[in-house]
């Protein structure tokens, strides 16, 4: 086994274990922090898969952005006064059954599909450059890029507006 492969598995294990921790912990804060670990694991996989930019973005946006949001959200919606921020669990049984069923289904799908043997994947893997990535983003996907801009803008405005304490469109009801 090569080094790279080992690291792959290490990151994979980190991801999976931390995700499982999220699944089993009741404390949301723990979950949130465990999520960091998951993200890091995923970011590692990204980097190892040749998507350094995505990996970095993953860390920046998720760890730096989303997670902070989530933690703030947890703080704001739970009166954290010493006690644990617990999220109770319910319909565990059915949820797990469905989840496991889904997993089996996906497993079976993956194995049957045999992605490794896909025709288009015959070409050898190549390292990609950030430059190419940027070019693609700004040429082929420029529309998406712009649209994302609008999306972020709107989401931002909306989020700010809704979260704002006294704001929100007035309504009698």
């Amino acid at each position: 086994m090569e080094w790279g492969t080992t690291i792959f598995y290490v990151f994979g294990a980190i991801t999976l274990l931390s995700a499982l921790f999220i699944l089993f912990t009741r404390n949301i804060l723990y979950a949130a922090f465990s999520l960091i670990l998951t993200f890091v694991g995923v970011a590692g996989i990204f980097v190892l898969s040749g998507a350094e930019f995505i990996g970095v973005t993953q860390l920046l946006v998720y760890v730096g952005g989303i997670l902070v949001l989530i933690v703030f959200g947890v703080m704001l919606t739970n009166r954290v006064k010493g006690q644990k921020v617990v999220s109770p669990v319910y319909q565990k049984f059915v949820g797990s059954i469905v989840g496991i069923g889904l997993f089996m289904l996906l497993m079976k799908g993956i194995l049957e599909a045999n992605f490794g043997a896909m025709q288009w994947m015959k070409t050898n893997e190549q390292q990609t450059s950030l430059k190419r990535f940027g070019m693609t983003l700004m040429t082929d996907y420029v529309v998406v890029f712009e649209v994302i801009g609008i999306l972020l803008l709107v989401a931002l405005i909306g989020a700010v507006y809704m979260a704002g304490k006294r704001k929100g469109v007035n309504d009698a009801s």
Partner: protein
Amino acid sequence: MMPVDHLLILGAGLFVIGFIVVTTRKNAIAVLIGIELMLNAANINLVVFSRFDPDFLQGQVFALFVITVAAAETAVALAIVLKVYRHFKTADLDKISELRG
């Protein structure tokens, strides 16, 4: 390199874990965490496949946008959670079920 299938199974596992989190956690924010896990699972797939698509890197681009959108969505979702919290004084979803039928 890790075989593609293993990574995909990892993705699937993450997806399912995320799904179970979504369906079993009462807290709305925990549900959001679950959704993030599911999105990450998809991202893993995308990036993995993108390895074989060096010309256009579509998978990577997709993953990038997923991350971005996820951020936006989380922001909106959290804002809504806060709003709900103001009305219901809780973020437990089983208590937020006045609309039904």
